[in-house]
């Protein structure tokens, strides 16, 4: 006999433990899929999760990919904590990159210490403006922010496409869909010779610290958390709901914009069509896996970044498409959501008394 009871309150230890269960189940699931496809599962998983980070270069690549994921997820945590479903971070990233990239292109033949800060600022503002569209429509017209933010992802990608093919395309670029290279003053400084890891990682770390401070030490953070738990309570307490929606979207958009600008001024160095391998969507998984907690998100961004790297390594060594990274990313979220069931419900197996599921 299995008996299911609703829990009265969620045990905190279990709340932070289930993501690990999800990761383990994902690795097992991945092994099974590799086995079905005719690969040696142990070997395939080794290529996926160990080979990529077995040297210094790989470790730098891991941090390079974790940086945008962490930044975006930190921003999203503000939205998700307050029950605002911004799923258009990919669009905010793209628009941030467009605005930041536009500024970088203005200075393409100039040098100066002030250029990079300007480019970064422009990127953050770009992302913020783009995130304000679903926020304003939600607050003043009652529209569904999920659909609006999602639609805007495609609009932003088409704007980028138009710019790099048309007015911003490199005049000496033989009609390739890309802009000029940015000047060195618009590039993120590299941290180590020969590695691609750049100063953008400090932006991500600063975002982590700042978000921890805002969420846990300020009145705004308190408002965000209360609104997420119960809208009625928030209204009763007299919180200004509309302002809060605008603020969380602006924070979220700014973070995504920073991630975009970090990519184009970091590893890419120009604007072209493919500036992000869907970091904006994957960061949603990162935010959930990190339990919307700033330090949890650091950990989660490293795990998910590894699925990107692993997919690239597996493509080289096993000749499987690099889209397989998405199989792992999807599975992580599936298993995480499924294991949440244990948080809200107690599963008791009555005939076997010792088997009370309580880790």
């Amino acid at each position: 006999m299995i008996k299911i009871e609703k829990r009265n309150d969620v045990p905190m230890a279990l709340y932070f433990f289930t993501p690990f269960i999800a990761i383990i189940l994902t690795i097992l699931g991945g092994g099974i899929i590799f086995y079905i496809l005719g690969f040696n599962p142990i070997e395939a998983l080794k290529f996926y999760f160990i080979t990529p980070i077995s040297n210094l270069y790989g470790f730098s690549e891991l941090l390079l990919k974790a940086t945008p994921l962490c930044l975006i997820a930190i921003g999203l945590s503000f939205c998700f904590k307050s029950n605002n479903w911004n799923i258009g971070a990919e669009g905010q990233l793209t628009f941030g990159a467009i605005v930041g990239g536009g500024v970088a292109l203005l200075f393409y033949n100039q040098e100066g210490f002030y250029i990079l800060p300007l480019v970064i600022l422009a990127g953050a503002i770009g992302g913020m403006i783009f995130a304000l569209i679903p926020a304003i429509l939600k607050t003043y017209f009652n529209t569904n922010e999920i659909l609006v933010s999602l639609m805007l992802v495609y609009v932003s990608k088409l704007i980028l496409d138009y710019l790099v093919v048309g007015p911003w395309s490199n005049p000496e670029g033989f009609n390739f869909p890309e802009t000029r290279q940015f000047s060195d003053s618009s590039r993120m400084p590299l941290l180590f010779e020969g590695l691609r890891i750049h100063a953008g990682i400090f932006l991500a770390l600063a975002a982590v610290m700042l978000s921890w401070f805002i969420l846990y030490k300020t009145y705004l953070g308190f408002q965000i958390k209360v609104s997420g738990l119960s809208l009625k309570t928030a209204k009763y307490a007299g919180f200004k709901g509309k302002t809060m929606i605008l603020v969380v979207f602006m924070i979220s958009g700014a973070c995504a914009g920073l991630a975009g600008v970090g990519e184009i001024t970091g590893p890419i160095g120009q604007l072209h069509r493919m500036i992000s391998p869907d970091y904006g969507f994957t960061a949603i998984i990162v935010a959930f896996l990190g339990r919307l907690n700033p330090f949890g998100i650091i950990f989660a961004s490293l795990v998910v970044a590894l699925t990107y790297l692993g997919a690239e390594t597996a493509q080289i060594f096993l000749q499987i498409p690099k889209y397989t990274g998405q199989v792992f990313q999807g599975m992580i979220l599936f298993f995480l959501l499924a294991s949440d069931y244990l948080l809200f419900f107690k599963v008791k197996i009555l005939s076997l008394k010792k088997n009370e599921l309580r880790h």
Partner: protein
Amino acid sequence: MSLDISFIGILIGSIMASSVPLILAASGELITERSGVLNLGVEGMMIIGAISGFALMVITDNLFIAIVGSMLSGVIISLIFGFLTQSLLTNHVATGLALTIFGIGLSAMLGKNFVGIPGKEFPILFSSLRESIPFFGPILFGHSIVLYFAFALPFLTNYFLKKTKLGLIVRAVGDSPVSASNQGINVILVRYCCILYGGAMCGLAGAYLSLIYTPQWIENMTAGRGWIALALVVFATWSPIKVLIGALIFGGITILQLHMQAIGFRIPVQFLSALPYLMTIIVLVVISRDSRKIKLNTPTSLGRIFYKEK
């Protein structure tokens, strides 16, 4: 380029063909959403349908098995979503998103050995009439059976929702799951069925792409059509007939931009491509600012988790 009458006929025919996957996927998703479930996994289910259909065609050399198999694969993959959201009470948005990400990845993995294999010609109906009648010929005849089914589907869906008892139950579950449950309706079961039906239609939409529209397997070949289908359901304010009209408009834009590119039209093609998304946002704003209108059109419990204390 001359705009004679037969050219316009062919143009309309090609617009109809390009709108088929949108009609199928959006009609399926419409039923799912009418039952109160928001499944953002349309793109993932379509791409799984596309690779399953194509793979089965290559393996069995039988188009019927391929079509049915693609629908079945859509059902199977949507079962993951159904189990998570209905039995384990997970958040619809996050689960649907995971389904899309997972589906795109899995399809590429499964389709690895099918890249570059040429497709098979899909039989078309009334091909002789297509040539013999000017203008109307290319519009009405010479299409695959899936196209005729797709164009009948919105009317069938409309009839189902408005005139049948089952349709009434689906709407009741979507609008007020608590009262439906009090009336003795098994809300979870109804929602499961609607999710699986949506999966079947998305699978078929994917198979249309890989077997009929562009008969081959290309990674990520649905290319965002699933998201347009999702937008289309909102654009149509959850009305099946408006889904048909919307799909023709959205399909028309796709075809027109190809032709405008060829003529060298001055409006950037990217602007035309962005139109469906911008139009959807505008429609959303128009229907949402009036709370009465949104109540009339939107399934009230859309995306909310239903849990019945046992």
